């Protein structure tokens, strides 16, 4: 009985202690491509420029096409905050500047990570980001340096 209490207390302490250092699942967004795709690593500035439409990235002669998640999803907010340092409202303003000057439309947006996974698997040109719990062996995590 006493042992069980100790175990319980320890796990509680551990959990609360960990949460101070570790920001849980909502924070875990991975940049991924199909395991068949040529892309293995990207610089942070390339990733940012591709998603903001500032640069067309060509790897092994093939244009890399970014995929987005729909506005309001947690993974999308996390992706833009983490990799571009911008809030969804700032990204919206950025695309307003592009659209209304005829300089392009935002990346195609899919409704959830599962849809992104399915698209990536069927299209090796695409680049996407997903909630880490959707990662499987058909995908490769892109190293962002």
């Amino acid at each position: 009985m006493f042992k069980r209490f100790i175990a319980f207390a320890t796990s509680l302490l551990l959990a609360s202690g960990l949460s101070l250092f570790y920001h849980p699942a909502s924070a875990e967004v991975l940049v991924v491509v199909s395991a068949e795709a040529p892309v293995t690593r990207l610089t942070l500035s390339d990733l940012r420029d591709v998603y903001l439409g500032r640069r067309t990235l060509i790897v092994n002669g093939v244009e890399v096409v970014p995929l987005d998640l729909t506005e309001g999803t947690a993974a999308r907010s996390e992706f833009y905050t983490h990799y571009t340092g911008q809030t969804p409202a700032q990204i919206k303003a950025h695309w307003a500047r592009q659209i209304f000057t005829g300089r392009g439309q935002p990346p195609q947006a899919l409704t959830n990570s599962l849809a992104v996974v399915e698209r990536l698997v069927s299209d090796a040109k695409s680049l996407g980001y997903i909630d880490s719990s959707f990662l499987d062996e058909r995908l490769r995590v892109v190293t962002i340096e």
Partner: protein
Amino acid sequence: MVRQATWLCAILIVTQSGALLADSGLPNLEFNGFGTLGVVRSDERNADFVAAPFVSEGAGYSHDWSAEVDSRLGLQATLRMTPQISSVVQVISEKRHDGSFAPDIEWANVQYDFTPNLSFRVGRMVQSSFMSSEHRKVNYATPWIRPPQEVYRLLPVANFDGVDVRYRYPVGKTSNELQMNFGGGSVDYSTGSIDASDSWGVSHRTHWGDATLFASYGELKVSADELSQFFDVYRLFGLPGEQLASRYEVDGKRTSLLSLGVGYDPGSWFVMGEWARSSSPSLLGDSEGAYMTFGYRIAEWTPYVGVARAKVTSNTSESGLNAALYPSPFAEGAQLLNGILNELLSSGMQQESITVGARWDFRPGMALTAQYDHIDMRSGSSGGLINQQPEFTPGERINLFSLALDFVF
């Protein structure tokens, strides 16, 4: 002539591209829009504050609270016909010189991408004279209620019919964009129009991490029938009149515009600033403008402060014809002409301003912004105010309060 040719060219590209359709998902048509619902109050009761120089009325004299200064609606259709060819048509409804909100075409062009980084456009475009010129009417996309007048009103002609080329190139960690354009345009006002012909411009933008660097240079020939007629009258006054007319005539002379801009935006705060100079060996003279805006982001709130300054660096008065040398009624005519000439020379914007505001991004695609401006006009300057009444005194200070709801969809 250039304008007819560009339209013909645009129509040809659209009609010929139908045969090239290949990729699935194309052609693809997107509709987008933007707008602002805004009100402004000015404490100067004897003249109107306006955001664009040629509208019929604004806040202060005509209206206590004017909803016509900043309100507008823009609708856009973007058609991607093939992977290389796309077309944009954007129509904007806003207050005009005749008092109406009749819609006008702001953008209408066809773009051809030779490569993803090299594109060519023909049709109607907006010159990238300043850092935010091309999207200056999309208030949602800028931090302020309206772009700082001290810079953005240096040049009134904004969109043009012609061609432009854009080349994007990465260098190391920077992404760069070079843009060149050529064409002509016109702006209507209540009693005539101002035309710009043979205008060309080059602009360059570099994104380097959180920093943006911008530079632009352009030249154009401005003409206005009313001004030409005014100087024709001067020429009736013999050699002194001829000399004044050739000194101040606008027709056939080139006006140049140079501007430099910087921005730094690491996310939680931003700073941006621009400096620009327009020069013309004519009545338009030489002017300089600059601003600096600093903003801080706290969740959905973005408070900001800005300072700006505009000055005319060429002469703002002219002794003109010596009326004593002419018999009546030419003497009175000379005085009248001198009066108009001096009024035109002193009408350039000369002022300093302080802006304090806050933006609230309360839901996706919508923002509410409140802004206070304190404008200190130099003596003799009317700071771009219109509908000046006899009781109006140039060179005073005015205070503005503006509230705007901006949206994009």
